[in-house]
């Protein structure tokens, strides 16, 4: 046990491990805040679609060879979020089919581009790490860490400032609209913030696992707690806890960071389901 502890404190002398921890916790916090709304609004599918778009954008960035790939990924994902939200609202075009089309399309094109143009010797490894985020969190530069802190601050601030409006629009969109709340504007805001979180979270868990990071803490909290506020607080706590645990375990046992975090989230989900079952 103390040996494990020594290993851990040894690792934490490295700045990149500390960066990973900071960024990991921030991402976990942000994604859990919006997770509740996304699950309740049945927007989880948008999260999933966007993460694939972000993967496609990353592939394009890699091919074009820009030094800071965020410059491409961030705007592309935000714009897709806006488009997907609009198609989701339009009941005539089946919203989920449009999302599925875009997300699978982005995935395929992204992989194709990487295969055609990448100069890297280890294509499979690159793709794998983009999809599952195996190592990128441990190779963050200082500027990436600051970018992450900045975006997280924006997400948290917006969430706190518009908390009541987000609740109202999530609970009953028609009533909000009828009483003069600009529900569509808030929906747009939610979609854009979701896009930001997804771009951030790609570093941590990779694009395939982002949905898990967003959804599991919210679902766990909803098993046990009954008010919106307590669910949000609980899911934030769960998410941060699981991220910390996942990062530490992955360092100790050299497992992939993203999957370890998601595994921790899944375990918590089952524990909370059990608690909810017993309570009721």
């Amino acid at each position: 046990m103390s040996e494990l502890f020594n290993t851990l404190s040894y690792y934490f002398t490295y700045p990149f491990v500390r960066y990973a921890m900071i960024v990991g916790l921030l991402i976990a916090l942000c994604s859990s805040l919006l997770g509740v709304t996304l699950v309740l609004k049945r927007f989880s599918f948008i999260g999933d679609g966007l993460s694939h778009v972000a993967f496609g954008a990353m592939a394009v960035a890699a091919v074009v060879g820009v030094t800071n790939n965020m410059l491409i990924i961030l705007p592309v994902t935000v714009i897709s979020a806006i488009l997907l939200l609009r198609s989701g609202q339009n009941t005539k075009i089946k919203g989920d089919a449009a999302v599925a089309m875009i997300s699978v399309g982005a995935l395929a094109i992204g992989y194709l581009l990487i295969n055609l143009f990448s100069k890297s010797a280890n294509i499979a490894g690159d793709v794998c790490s983009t999809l599952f985020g195996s190592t990128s969190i441990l190779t963050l530069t200082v500027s990436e860490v600051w970018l992450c802190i900045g975006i997280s601050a924006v997400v948290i601030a917006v969430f706190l400032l518009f908390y009541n409006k987000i609740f109202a629009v999530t609970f009953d969109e028609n009533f909000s609209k009828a009483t003069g709340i600009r529900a569509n504007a808030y929906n747009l805001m939610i979609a854009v913030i979701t896009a930001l979180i997804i771009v951030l979270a790609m570093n941590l868990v990779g694009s395939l696992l982002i949905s898990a990071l967003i959804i599991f803490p919210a679902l766990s909290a909803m098993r046990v707690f009954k008010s919106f506020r307590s669910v949000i607080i609980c899911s934030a706590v769960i998410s941060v806890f699981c991220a910390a645990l996942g990062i530490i375990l992955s360092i100790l046992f050299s497992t992939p960071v993203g999957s370890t975090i998601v595994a921790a989230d899944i375990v918590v989900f089952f524990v909370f389901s059990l608690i909810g079952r017993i309570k009721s």
Partner: protein
Amino acid sequence: MSVQLKCEKAVLGYDNNVVSEQIDFSVSRGDYLCVLGENGAGKSTLMKTLLGLTPLMGGSITFCGDMAQNEIGYLPQQTQVQRDFPASVREIVQSGCLNRCGLRPFYNREEKEMARSAMEKLGITDLAKSCYRELSGGQQQRVLLARALCATRKMLLLDEPVTGLDPKAAREMYELTAKLNREEQVTILMISHDINAITYATHILQIGKTQQFFGTKDEYLKSRIGQAFLCNFGEEGSSDVGTL
């Protein structure tokens, strides 16, 4: 009596499909208007159009005096709230005050007080901390009515508020709205199939493909169309006809 709402030659529908047309009526402060019509006649569509949720296809709807479109409280026919939505009663009632907040992120003392008094009026004060989804149908309707009251003191639109309630809860719901109408001068527009709703109404609007009747309750009961409506209930063996 000051007119609050005027609807002239209104055409209702969705994307070029007309549901109902030639809707002509007006509502004054303190009125209790009961909207009747068959299933699919366009009653809910009328409400959504009044609220600005569905665009008007023709004619005009005007809000007069100190009344504005976003000052209507609304009790939807079926809240599309998911069964698993975690929200406490207080959170929901307070959300009715949101249109007063503007850009201010939190509710102030006055708004919290409004929510408290709305809950008191509807007798749900002791449920404030309860979870909405675990309440009975009647309690849920009261919560939504309290929320609507927070949004306005002028006009409430209620779309089939007693559907799915047992007779006792339904009667309580009608009495509550009648009390709000009587004591607080809240204008009520209510859709209902139920003959009990008419008991409290001052005016009746009946719509179909076109408008079939608009006038006071007494006129309605004397009219041929009103007689036909009552007959229906007589055949179904309702004992409440006598109370009209």
